[in-house]
């Protein structure tokens, strides 16, 4: 049986069933299909995983579904490829995906568009599985654009609100900018190697004689694509706005899976990046910059989802730092732990929002720990995990990233490590700030809201518990070692080994410092934070406005484009130059016609006559000179 094809097809079937029949067949049907098929896909993925493990783990499964197009002897196949890296990705996508589907049955229970929601969510899984299972860059690209579509549809799920619809559009367009880079990289690879199959691309770049193309150029082009999908500077602007979508969507698409596609792409094509030191440097720098930038913005955000969104940007930045210094396995390790704790945080946030009847402003929360204890405990575990408190999952993966940022023989530097560490300090600070302001400080809720606060039902809280457990223990699976056959291990340079222990201890101190800082400032409530904000007013305004990047883009890109299109192209080009000269000629002809003939006054016939005359003239001229 074509198991890989089945994995991909299952959610597609779910999409079609729910999209076409769902509204008529009612919620039980929608839930059963919407959750059942992803779970089946997860089971099939487990089966594939066992097959790969059974054969020693080095032999990938390969399936050709069909031939998409053939040009001469070159063909584009729709084929799937399942090695350990695909296995990790597929299990995360279907596993965390299934959990979030189950959670959604509670969260979206009363939404009138319940069937549409599950249809979109299944559609997302379908494209995401194409992305991670595709053997060729083409299939990957199909999934790549497809998840963008699903993301667009889900961000704008509540489309009656123009702002939410606009956020969806912004996400799609920004991603498209990245996709253009992806396409160019893909074209360049196809032109040079004649294949788009990623295992072949890697082996071509790892062969003794390098392909006749600059690995760094290809690498940069593909990284532009990764920047779009994984929301790295300068294409990060869409992700915070994407929080307009339903919260489980933020957990699945904008935290655990889709936004990590860029990380997957670079890791998957590590054959290119191993020979692309310049591209790798760029990746590390962009990653570090994004990590730092986003963490600093997260410190002052007051919307619970926005804090988490900037935190996602920042954590993705860490992953790119790891990729940039050649620690591909470590990047995937952090991707994997991040999927658990960030999904848990988002779903926890969803549970809070659910409990508070839609409130997202942490300044109007507080004191929720006792009222919704399951949400609180799971949220606290995930917060500790992302902050890097040992021995939770985030500690292991983040520590490894910081270690290789410092020590890697390919691109590691104390500066990268320092930026990473400062970011870690901020991460710990803003996450515990969030935890305290939401759950532990005295309540700032209105009486009415407070009265209605309730713990989420089992289909939601159960999922939170599972994810919290995974966030706690997930770090004990040594993903980099597991992936060694696919992703070469990073090497620490020179005689740096003896730094490893001190740096590890330092990471722990950093995390605890962040915690202590958060308690000092926000332990009692908002007051001290407001004093600080007033003292550093300029900085606070800069951060609250996200460094004004949206405004800069608006002023430098969008408005000029509109202005040029409207004033220059339409006004001057079409109306004045082209139609103007046309009308001028017509008027001229009309006047001439008026003189030549009293019968016709600039009618159609005359123009045709004129044209015939002119053509005859040309003809005669050509005959004479031919």
């Amino acid at each position, binding site marked *: 049986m074509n198991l890989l094809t089945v994995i991909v097809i299952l959610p597609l079937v779910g999409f079609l069933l729910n999209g076409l029949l769902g509204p008529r067949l009612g919620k039980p049907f929608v839930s059963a299909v919407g959750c059942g098929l992803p779970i089946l896909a997860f089971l099939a993925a487990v089966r594939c995983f066992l097959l790969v493990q059974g054969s020693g783990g080095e032999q990938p499964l390969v399936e050709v579904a069909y031939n998409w197009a053939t040009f*001469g002897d070159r063909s584009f196949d729709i084929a799937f490829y399942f090695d350990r890296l695909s296995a990790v990705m597929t299990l995360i996508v279907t596993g965390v995906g299934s959990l979030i589907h189950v959670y959604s049955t509670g969260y979206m229970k009363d939404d009138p568009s319940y069937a549409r929601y599950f249809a979109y969510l299944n559609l997302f899984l379908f494209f995401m599985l194409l992305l991670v299972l595709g053997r060729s860059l083409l299939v990957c690209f199909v999934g790549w654009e*497809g998840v963008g579509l699903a993301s*667009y549809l889900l961000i704008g799920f509540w489309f009656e*609100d123009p702002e939410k619809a606009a956020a969806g*559009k912004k996400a*799609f*367009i920004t991603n498209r900018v990245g996709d253009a880079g992806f396409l160019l990289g893909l074209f360049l690879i196809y032109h040079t190697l004649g294949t788009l199959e990623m295992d072949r691309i890697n082996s071509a770049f790892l062969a003794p004689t390098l392909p006749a193309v600059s690995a760094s150029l290809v690498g940069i082009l593909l990284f532009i694509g990764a920047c779009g999908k994984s929301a790295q500077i300068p294409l990060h602007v869409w992700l915070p706005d994407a929080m307009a979508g339903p919260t489980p969507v933020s957990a699945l698409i904008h935290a655990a899976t889709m936004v990590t596609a860029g990380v997957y792409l670079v890791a998957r094509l590590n054959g290119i990046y191993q020979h692309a030191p310049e591209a790798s440097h760029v990746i590390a720098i962009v990653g570090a910059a994004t990590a730092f930038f986003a963490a600093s913005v997260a410190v002052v955000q007051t919307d619970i989802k926005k804090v988490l969104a900037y935190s996602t940007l920042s954590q993705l930045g860490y992953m790119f730092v790891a990729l940039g210094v050649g620690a591909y396995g470590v990047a995937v390790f952090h991707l994997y732990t991040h999927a658990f704790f960030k999904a848990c945080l988002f779903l926890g946030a969803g549970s809070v929002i659910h409990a508070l009847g839609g409130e997202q402003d942490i300044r109007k929360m507080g004191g929720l720990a006792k009222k919704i204890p399951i949400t609180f405990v799971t949220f606290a575990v995930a917060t500790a995990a992302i902050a890097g408190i040992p021995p939770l999952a985030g500690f292991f993966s983040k520590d490894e990233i910081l270690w290789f940022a410092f020590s890697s023989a390919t691109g590691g530097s104390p500066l990268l490590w320092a930026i990473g560490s400062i970011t870690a300090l901020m991460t710990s600070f803003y996450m515990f700030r969030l935890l305290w302001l939401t759950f532990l400080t005295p309540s700032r809720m209105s009486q009415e809201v407070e009265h209605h606060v309730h713990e989420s039902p089992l289909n939601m809280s159960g999922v939170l518990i599972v994810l919290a457990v995974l966030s706690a223990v997930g770090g004990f699976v040594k993903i980099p070692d597991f992936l060694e056959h696919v992703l070469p291990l990073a090497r620490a340079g020179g005689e740096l080994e003896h730094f490893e222990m001190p740096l590890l201890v330092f990471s722990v101190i950093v995390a605890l410092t962040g915690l202590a800082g958060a308690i000092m400032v926000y332990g009692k409530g908002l007051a001290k934070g407001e004093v600080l904000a007033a003292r550093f007013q300029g900085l606070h305004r800069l951060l609250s406005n996200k460094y004004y990047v949206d405004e800069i883009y608006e002023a430098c890109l969008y408005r000029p484009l509109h202005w040029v299109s409207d004033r220059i192209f339409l006004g001057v*080009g079409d109306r004045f130059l082209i139609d103007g000269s046309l009308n001028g000629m017509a008027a001229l002809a009309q006047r001439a016609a008026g003189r030549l003939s009293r019968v016709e006054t600039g009618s159609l016939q005359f123009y045709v006559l004129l044209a015939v005359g002119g053509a005859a003239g040309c003809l005669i001229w*050509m005959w004479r000179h031919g």
Partner: protein
Amino acid sequence: MADSTLLNLVLWLPVLGMAGIAVLPKGNDSAVRSLSLVLMLVQLALTAVLYLHFDPNVSGLQFATRRPWIAAWGVDYSIGLDGINVLLVALTAFLGPLVVAGAFSAIQKDVKLFYAMVLFIQFAMLGTFVAQDLFLFYVFWEAMLIPMFLIIGIWGGERRIYATLKFVLYTAFGSILMLAALIYLVYSMHRTNGAMSFGFTALYAKSLPLETQMWLLAAFALSFAIKVPMVPLHTWLPDAHVEAPTTGSVILAGVLLKMGTYGFMKLGFPLFPDATRAFAPALMTLSVISIVYGACLALVQTDIKKVIAYSSISHLGYVMLGLVSLDLVGIQGAILQMVSHGLVAGGLFLMVGMIYERCHTRDIAAYGGLAKLLPVFSVFFTILTLASIGLPTTSGFAGEFMALLGAFNAAWPLHEAGYNLPLVLAVVAVSGVVLGALYMLWLAQRMLFGPVKAPHQPFPDLNARERTILIVLVAAIFAIGLYPQEPLRKTELGAREYQQLVLRTHTTANHPESDE
């Protein structure tokens, strides 16, 4: 089976239909509609047989007929299918029934004449595609103008006279130049070897000095570029679309514009290969300008039809880019993009017609939140929007992707040889995909999302007829997007022949006709 009979039947069936409509008593509008629809469906069925029996492994013409027509001038009635026109014939036949059914409720005035004209234009378009004789081609080419002129002029909007005038002026201007060039071409052949022929194959064999080729190509190109249309010869299109009734817009976007690109592919480039290669940078530049310029203008329109009209200019730019690339992938992509654009833009114009029938306005600002009001309409509109954007799994992606890949394939070696213009153009063309998403999503957002807003409420969602039309279109769009290999198989040899024709050296240094 007499193969050639079938193609003749497909071609002449609409004429038969016109005769039938003429015979029908006046006032029986529904009979006219049914007759036209049945006829188009029969034509589609026969075309399907042709398509299925079209052997992709045979080069040259299939189902060919060749009879002397005007013997004294060497003009033949010569028609046939080859890899270049087979998909376009299929597209024309496929859109026929949809166009007819799409006008059922919109057209209530002069129904007999209207459907007679629709059949007439169907005949002329098919004739242009299957003609293998330059004279015959020209006759069909000109014949298309008449029904289009009438369809816009009689059933069009308020400024229809201005629009028709502009349309006819532009195209007549182009046609006259083409006429002059083709007479010169045949005449010069007559001078060299005494024979007189308008047959394409005979003309391909003709060698000409480069300078002559350039002049003749310029004349042909002007005529074809107006039809495509390429910037800066495009301003007739938005006006024609806006004033045309839905049927006119669908025919225009669906098939008529492809006449231009087909003309380049079948005549302009293969007849004058050296000139084509000499002009290639200019042609490529114009194609990319069309892509970007069309997209930018689509961005600032306030009329739904104008957005789609300008998007057509942009999308056909990709076709030209693929054709000029002379790369097999690019050429195949161009052919696919022609078909895809016919389906997608045709579908979008049909949908604009559907909403116009309900709300009587095409002003984007008059709409909002249609996803709430007309859920079925919105689903189809979203799908067509995405296909227009070129989202993978739709036909729009397959065509655009291959055309761009071809352009890149052609440009990169030149870049490595130190000549960078083509690469710059290819990169700009790729960035066109961003603009494409920008204007289409902006349109969809304003119409479908936000608070509900629409004039003349309440009105029903799409009815069964409208749904059927759109389901058929959407199915074709996905079929091509998911499995482009099927149509590509049919066109591969045709694409190769085109490639070889244009790549061959064709000048004659010491030709008796070379300049004095």
